[in-house]
């Protein structure tokens, strides 16, 4: 069986991305906290997932953003570069366009506040709730953190319980701890 040469395959994927024909381009990015599936639309980064199963993720992305979903390293070059710098300790905040299409207003507001929590510092669910003007919504904020579509870049690992406990993390507490340690955050 004749198979497509790797180089030709790579060229096609690059051309698809540079000609702007994709609803979503994605790739796997390796990191100290495991392989990450990173996806971007023409509007910006739309997904970072610790569940690096490309088949399942491609289905999900197609439903959310359109069927022209292709693994295309070029489409996520900027994200890959910034993530590499972050994990090398050379970057303290991200300079990336994000695509939060479809996120309801409360989610958007919470993620917007989350984006302002500085590198190496932690805040609490309650404090984030207060900052979006719903002081009693700590639990709802927790849910938004748990479903954060763009972890690391939107730093939900910097959100902890009122007593300083790590509480939870969609990617697992080990990863939350690893990210906070990388940032030199002081934990209880």
């Amino acid at each position, binding site marked *: 069986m004749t198979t497509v040469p790797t180089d030709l395959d790579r060229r096609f994927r690059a051309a698809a991305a540079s000609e702007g024909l994709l609803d979503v381009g994605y790739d796997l990015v390796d990191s100290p906290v495991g392989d990450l599936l990173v996806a971007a639309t023409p509007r910006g980064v739309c997904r970072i997932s610790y569940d690096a199963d490309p088949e399942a993720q491609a289905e999900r992305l*197609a439903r959310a953003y359109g069927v*022209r979903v292709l693994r295309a390293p070029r489409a996520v070059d900027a994200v890959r570069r910034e993530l590499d710098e972050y994990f090398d300790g050379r970057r303290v905040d991200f300079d990336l366009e994000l695509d939060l299409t479809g996120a309801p207003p409360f989610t958007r507001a919470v993620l917007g506040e989350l984006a302002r929590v500085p590198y190496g510092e932690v805040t609490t669910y309650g404090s984030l709730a207060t900052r979006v003007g719903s002081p009693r919504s700590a639990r709802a904020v927790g849910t938004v953190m748990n479903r954060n579509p763009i972890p690391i870049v939107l730093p939900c690992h910097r959100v902890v319980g009122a007593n300083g406990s790590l509480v939870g993390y969609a990617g697992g507490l080990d990863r939350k701890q690893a990210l906070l340690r990388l940032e030199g955050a002081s934990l209880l």
Partner: protein
Amino acid sequence: METVSLPPFERFYNDNRDAIYAHLRRVVGPDAADDAFQETFLRALRGYDKLRHADHLRAWAFTIASRVVIDLGRRVKPTVELVEELGVSDSRPAYAELEHLADRLPGKERAAVILRYGYDLPYADIAAALDSSEEAARAAASSGVRRLRKTLR
């Protein structure tokens, strides 16, 4: 709302790239195959989100590849025998004429008729395109032709 359950393009591409590449190497040779391959899938990508159904995606990919080959000027001309026989030929090329005529045939017959008589593909390739045996490809083409004759007379 109409729901079309097309697979993500990634899956369509993975499922079909090797068959299309093998086909293009046979038709235009290894040197021209690379460009034809890239052009085929870029065109597929441009049309993919406008597809109205997810049937016979491989045949669709072969149709695009065949047209790319014609556009590259690698092929003298597609067969016109069926179009002439049906007596409805105008100035359009055979494949365009047939795509129009065959529009109402069932998917598999339509694909077989267009690939055989529009693009002059051998039955081995049509079988690959339809993901079926050569006999099934022949059968689909001939019942498609019978149906066409009936509707046009």
